[in-house]
């Protein structure tokens, strides 16, 4: 579990990037917390800097959109999903449990 920040430091509509490898983006979408891979599956852009609307985040480079609940792209140019990660809050602190990377023995 990786501590991210205090819950009150990630208000509704905000996002934050954590410098894991690969980096992870955490979003507060209307009170629900979501975590996905930060790097767009299309090319090199940080989704934590994207446009959050409902459960969708739009990539700041070429406007692909991803569903935060599933990591699936909802439009081009992205054609592959980003990974989703589990988010919990304990003692007022947001934590992320990174998904096990495919092909690694973690």
């Amino acid at each position: 579990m990786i501590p991210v920040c205090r819950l009150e430091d990630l208000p509704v509509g905000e996002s934050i990037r954590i410098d894991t490898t690969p980096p992870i983006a955490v979003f507060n979408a209307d009170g629900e917390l979501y975590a996905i891979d930060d790097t767009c599956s299309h090319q090199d852009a940080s989704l934590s800097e994207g446009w959050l609307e409902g459960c969708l985040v739009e990539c700041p480079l070429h406007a692909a959109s991803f569903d935060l609940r599933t990591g699936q792209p909802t439009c081009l140019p992205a054609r592959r999903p980003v990974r989703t990660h589990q988010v919990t809050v304990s003692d007022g602190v947001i934590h992320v449990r990174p998904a096990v990377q495919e092909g690694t023995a973690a």
Partner: protein
Amino acid sequence: MRTVTVVGASLAGLYAARELRAQGFDGRLVIVGEEPHRPYDRPPLSKEFLTGSTGSTGSAGATGQTGSTGSTGSTGGGADEGHLALTDAEEEGQLAAEWLLGTRARGLDPRGRTVLLEDGRTVSTDGVVIATGASARRLPGGAALAGVHTLRTLDDARALRAELAGGPRRVVVIGGGFIGAETASSCATLGHDVTVVEAAPLPLVPQLGREMAEVCAALHPRGGTRLITGAPVARLHGTPAVTAVELGDGRRLPADVVVVGIGAVPNTGWLAGSTLALGDGVLCDDGCVTALPRVVAVGDVARVGGVRAEHWTSATQQPAVAVRNLLAGRTVDRARPLPYFWSDQYGSRIQFAGRRRDGDTVRIAEGSTGGDGFLALYERDGVTTAALAVDRPRPFMRIRRELARTAQPASAA
């Protein structure tokens, strides 16, 4: 409509093919492309493809980008060419198109009902999407010396990359536009000795205006590249390989590799015998419709409502409108995209959106031009007309959306 032919199998052509199917066209779809490759993405060619870094998509795996996508898997390049592919086998199956690759179209009959192919074949068609893009402009009178490159196609990029792989070289990039700047930056990253020569007193003034062009020009020396401005090229020296670039004032720059990045010319030559109006592109109305209602044009080759863009985003946005109008047989929809482009150089991401005009004032809204990035707003009569960001994606996104909400058709601006 029973048959639609898309001429040009790259970004805009592929998006048009997708739109045709998405908008319910279930007839015969023919895609004619001069290059032997399946559609691939050009922007990485001057960026991560040249430096050989595959970007950050590696962790997700290159699913679906198998050798069958055509542009991949042949000479050299290896895995990172897979990252350039715009389609995969699954999507190609869904498109159910006839691909005529490695085939140049050489003409369109006066009614726009027959596409003539270089090899003598013809394609009878009911509708045509022109998506033939643009080619790199060449130096006038330039004989083909070894070591002199342009950068427009995958083959160009492979050739340049191979030449840059043989140890440190003296590279002269002719032209300080975006592709020239990105190429210079990539060459510097690879450890080469790089000089950019620009004929104008300052590069990128038409795109960014003087003030911001100055800021972007400063990226070159910061990245270890020499920038020589106000320096038209007189001639190239060397036989059979280039050895030096001579400037108008007589200066000679020793060079092992020369990259000519002096713009692109729209590929309209094949349409000379057609009835379409040509003039720096295929002339279309605001809805990408040409003089013939069953012929539309999209992407770098299209002059839509008086404006020809050479941006990735225009090439991906125009096809939806063009196809709607093609299937309707008249202009029922207009393209009103906000011009947008990005460029990556010297570790910075530059993004620009909007329609700037000379005389607009520029205000730094965030950050500073001397520091680690900024957002600049172009303003006229108290209204924001355009925005430029260097490493400020988040505020840029906000302002880009605001600008898009108020965007007018290209011709009304």
